[in-house]
């Protein structure tokens, strides 16, 4: 409510470190640590779980979860767990790549458009509008078709759709910042536009960018899996969660649920956790949002 002044109490000398915030927010801490665990597991797991994801064993096909194969084996006797780990690695790394590429391109274009305005702005805005009017998945599919289907094409396609999405928000933010007194005051001391842009504007974009990266990451991992599922993403024998679901879907129906079950569960967990984290972080960063929940 605007009638009451925002907290104006004397504030501690230093910016509150993120860790102190974590201590208070248990759910966020839980979500973060779960996600971290999943990421660490997929990235480092293969170091410990040494069965190669491509090693077939026709003597042990379609075995259910057991001690030797905690997630069972598939129709050629490959160990689902090692494929799960490898697949997670593909999904997570590709998701990160998409979030990062989009962020970098989006940020550069937003800075250019927001600070130069004029035709540069018009051009980039038009470009991003023209891309954003396609549904992400369709666009990525078309690009996969135009290039050779695979993780690279998927990353290119999804990044292409993600950058305008960053740019749109960041551009608004850049424009807003340029209207702010602290930017005007920096210009008023005679600072070079480059200094204003990089030392003052850019740092303010970072938190927004990180939030958006979280959202893009989640969406990208899902889209990537969707492409894999449609046969337009990672190609066998590369393990990837979506592709694994395709391979396992017929066995889903004959009772061998573990082949498609675990990758799906992995996807669900990774994306849900990302969503929860991004949500929570947004609330914290939102100047209007209060930390505590109350009515």
């Amino acid at each position, binding site marked *: 409510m605007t009638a009451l002044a925002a907290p104006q109490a004397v504030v501690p000398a230093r910016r509150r470190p993120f860790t102190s915030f974590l201590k208070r927010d248990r759910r966020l801490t839980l979500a973060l640590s779960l996600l971290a665990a999943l990421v660490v597991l997929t990235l480092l797991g293969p170091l410990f779980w040494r069965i190669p994801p491509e090693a077939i064993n026709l003597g042990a096909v379609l075995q259910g979860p057991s001690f030797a194969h905690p997630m069972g084996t598939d129709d050629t006797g490959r160990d689902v767990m090692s494929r799960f780990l490898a697949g997670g690695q593909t999904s997570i790394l590709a998701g990160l790549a998409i979030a990062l590429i989009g962020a970098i391109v989006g940020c550069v274009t937003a800075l250019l458009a927001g600070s130069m305005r004029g035709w540069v702005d018009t051009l980039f805005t*038009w470009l991003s509008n023209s891309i954003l*009017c*396609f549904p992400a998945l369709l666009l990525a599919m078309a690009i996969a078709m135009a290039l050779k289907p695979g993780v690279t094409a998927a990353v290119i396609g999804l990044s292409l759709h993600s950058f305008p999405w960053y740019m749109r928000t960041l551009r608004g933010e850049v424009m807003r910042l340029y209207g702010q007194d602290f930017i005007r005051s920096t210009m008023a001391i005679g600072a070079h536009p480059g200094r204003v842009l990089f030392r003052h504007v850019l740092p303010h974009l970072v938190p927004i960018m990180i939030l958006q990266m979280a959202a893009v990451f989640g969406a990208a991992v899902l889209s990537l899996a*969707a492409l894999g599922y449609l046969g337009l993403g990672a190609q066998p024998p590369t393990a990837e969660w979506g592709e694994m679901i395709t391979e396992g879907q017929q066995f889903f129906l004959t009772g061998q649920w573990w082949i*498609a079950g675990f990758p799906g569960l992995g996807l*669900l967990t990774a994306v849900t956790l990302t969503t929860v984290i991004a949500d929570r972080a947004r609330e914290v960063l939102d100047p209007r949002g209060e930390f505590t929940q109350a009515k």
Partner: protein
Amino acid sequence: MTSTLLKRLGVALATIFGASIFTFVLLRKVPGDPARAIAGDTATEETVAALRQSMGLDDNLFVQYGNYMGSLLRGDFGFSYSTGNSVGTLLGQRLPATLELGLLSVIIAIVAAVLAASFAVYSRRRWPDQAVRAASSLAMGSPPFWIALLALMVFSIQLGIFPGPEGRLSPGMLKPPNITGMFTVDSLLAGQWGTFANAAWHLILPAAIVTLGPFAFLSRLYRNQLRGTLRETFVAVSRSHGLRRLPVYNRHVAPHGLLSLLPAASLLFADLLAGSLLVEKVFGWPGIGSMTADAIIQKDFAVVQAVLLLAAVLYVVVSLLADLLMTAADPRTRVGAR
């Protein structure tokens, strides 16, 4: 007023133009020869050359683009070699199925999101809000194709309550007369109750799964909007006049939330063509989505191009309409602002 309208129209046209260039260039750059693909693997080089010429593939890109736009404007979307149909025919066959599924799920999503978020925000307790947020986070994170498989396994195979992935009607079920192309609507119009029940029964599971994403998106949006509005001064003012929670909520909070929901919900409609793509694929739903997925696998560029462009135009048009609707619904913009 008219000048803003013209400006928006201009932006919309420019966007569509950009999109068309994009699809055109993208698909002309597809490796492989479309003429060869159409002529078949054993066709001779002369056949392929003749075909290339008749398809205009030898012209320069600008001429090709001009021809392409020209035929689009004439309503000719090209020929799908992978199905042996004109793309227009295919769209006509497939669109109703997608619309039926998409519209139903968008409507469910809107209704469910509004109800859930209202309950979460209105309730003074914490658990409804937490429950709704958890549900929407889960819905957001769930891979639709996997959930669809899971649902099939549980509801169709284990429990047998819902039909298998057999499309829109049980095999052998009489199709209703073609009025709108949407089976549930048509069968109701024709009074075919059995067909209606069957079509509805086939619709439930896929629609429920397609709904997940939009529901997650809308419910969190609406919730945040409501919470934001609740913090507005005018809400406190109404309360200070002695209005109780429910009337304030209904008369002042909800309208703001709904107004802000309008553009978001319209984006869902804009996403109709692609939104159900994955679920269509799993359920054997004969819609645009599964057609596009197949066409992409087959490199049937005419279909892909048409669907991409259609989706883009739909998006632009719907957002334009939503914009105008917003303008019309919001008195701040409707009545000449100060």
